[in-house]
């Protein structure tokens, strides 16, 4: 019966539906009113539709998410996937090479300024020197020793290009549409929004460690996705190697601090050996298997060994180029 009436007034349903969102024109309003007045069943149909609208509105979902839990999760996500920070570390061989040519670089730099004018900035660090550079776009670069950084004074252009030799840690300001590209040993490490690409690979291995940000590394037809806590190593003629970065102290030089939390002495010694380029032997297995928590500021090796010896109740001596940690009686 109602269907028949709806057919008779072809667009009466449309009018009813419009009345729900109060978008009836005044002539439509009159038309609807006329139809309603015609028959009690019309009025009843209209009331039921309106009631359907009201009833469904009154029974909205009660779903309430756990905002606290979600906030914690969100916070972890933005700390690990945004404000892209990346670290470009060349391998040790390269430091040596760069250290060897440091005077050469100084001269080249002079030439640079003479030939290219002051539109380009070159930053250098000598041995045992560290530097923090604020780039014009708000990004920060922490340079390790024996390193060289070159970039356009205004960092103008579609691409924010940085040329690096040595080691540096980048905190990249987010500039949508303006990729941040680090050129190091014929590799390109690109940051755009929350990700970056490394497109070339070098003759000398280059290591990229990702602290935060999601990274896609391209190499020929291979593509690797590197996530925080992972690293990728480029060596000439080899495929890039992506691996977990197990070294929590890889930016110790930047933090000016080592962090050893419940780390076995043998592991601590390994980090110190690597950092200072020396050989350290622990002669006592009892000391070697201890797991101290120790976060010393970076200092000279003898000072650190003093501290470590104190914590582990040990002694240390230097024999030639080797440091020995022994049990104190």
């Amino acid at each position: 019966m109602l269907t028949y009436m709806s057919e008779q007034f072809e667009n009466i349903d449309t009018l009813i539906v419009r009345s729900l969102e109060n978008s009836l024109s005044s002539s439509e309003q009159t038309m609807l009113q006329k139809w309603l007045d015609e028959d009690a069943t019309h009025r009843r149909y209209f009331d039921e539709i309106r009631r359907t609208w009201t009833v469904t509105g009154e029974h909205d979902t009660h779903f309430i998410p756990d905002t606290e839990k979600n906030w914690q999760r969100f916070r972890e996500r933005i700390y690990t996937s945004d404000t892209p920070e990346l670290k470009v570390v060349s391998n040790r061989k390269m430091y040596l090479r760069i250290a060897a040519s440091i005077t050469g670089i100084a001269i080249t730099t002079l030439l640079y300024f003479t030939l290219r004018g002051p539109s380009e900035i070159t930053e250098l660090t000598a041995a045992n020197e560290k530097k923090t550079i604020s780039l014009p776009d708000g990004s920060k670069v922490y340079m390790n020793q024996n390193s060289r950084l070159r970039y356009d004074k205004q960092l103008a252009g579609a691409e924010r290009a940085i040329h690096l030799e040595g080691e540096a840690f980048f905190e990249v300001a987010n500039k949508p549409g303006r990729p941040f590209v680090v050129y190091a040993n014929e590799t390109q490490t690109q940051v755009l929004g929350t990700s970056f690409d490394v497109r070339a690979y070098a003759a000398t291995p280059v290591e990229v460690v990702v602290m935060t940000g999601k990274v896609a590394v391209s190499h020929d037809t291979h593509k690797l996705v590197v996530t925080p806590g992972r690293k990728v190593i480029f060596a000439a003629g080899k495929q890039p190697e992506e691996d977990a970065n197990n070294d929590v102290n890889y930016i110790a030089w930047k933090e000016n601090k080592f962090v050893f939390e419940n780390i076995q002495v043998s592991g601590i010694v390994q980090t110190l050996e690597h950092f200072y380029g020396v050989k350290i032997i622990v002669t006592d297995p009892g000391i070697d298997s201890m797991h101290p928590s120790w976060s010393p500021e970076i200092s000279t090796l003898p000072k650190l060994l003093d501290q470590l010896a104190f914590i582990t109740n040990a002694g240390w001596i230097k024999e030639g180029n080797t440091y020995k940690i022994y049990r104190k009686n």
Partner: protein
Amino acid sequence: MQAVLRTFSSTAPTYTGGNTDKGYFCAMPENAALQKLLRENEQLFMETLFRNWFPFVCKTIYRIVQDTATAEDLAQDVFIKIWNRRAELQEVYFKAYLHKAAINIALDYVDKQKRRGVHMELGEQHEPVRVENPGGGMSLQQTTRHIQQAVDQLPEKCREIFILSRYEELSYKEIASTLKISVKTVENQMVTALKKLRISLQEYLQVTILFIAGAAIYPLLLQC
């Protein structure tokens, strides 16, 4: 800092008002305060925005995707996008922005699921929702569940349109532009939705009408 946060928490997101109340004015102090925070302390801005609007965003998505875990994931993504675009948000009215983003991400998700062949619909045929004891000891939760079931049983597009109109309070015009269809189609789908719902929710409508008619005759009818 604490005080600022608490001030914001007290203005919990509510979405009241009818369809006519569509003006998104940037003059609301809440929004101005958020904009100020965004300029001064983006971490605090993010936390404030998140804590105030996450439930709202999540609920909007949930209505469309009908799965709590998916809704939470997608709501997280909405805020991640905000964070990533925080440099471009100076002119934004956050509530409207979040609402739009929530709807779009949910609709995209449903579309993708559909393309993958995953059916969102809970039932094709339209039978009246069964009510064990109409008007009797029915709890509010039961009623809500039944009514939501009825909405879920609508054909997919029809359901989406109905939800956008009824719960997200979008105008037919806004729905049309969101879904890239004509206003006429939206209106037709609304007619279909309401007609189907009128049938499946018949018992609720009758019960209510009886109450309106007067409690006096209600016991008599129960005896019939």
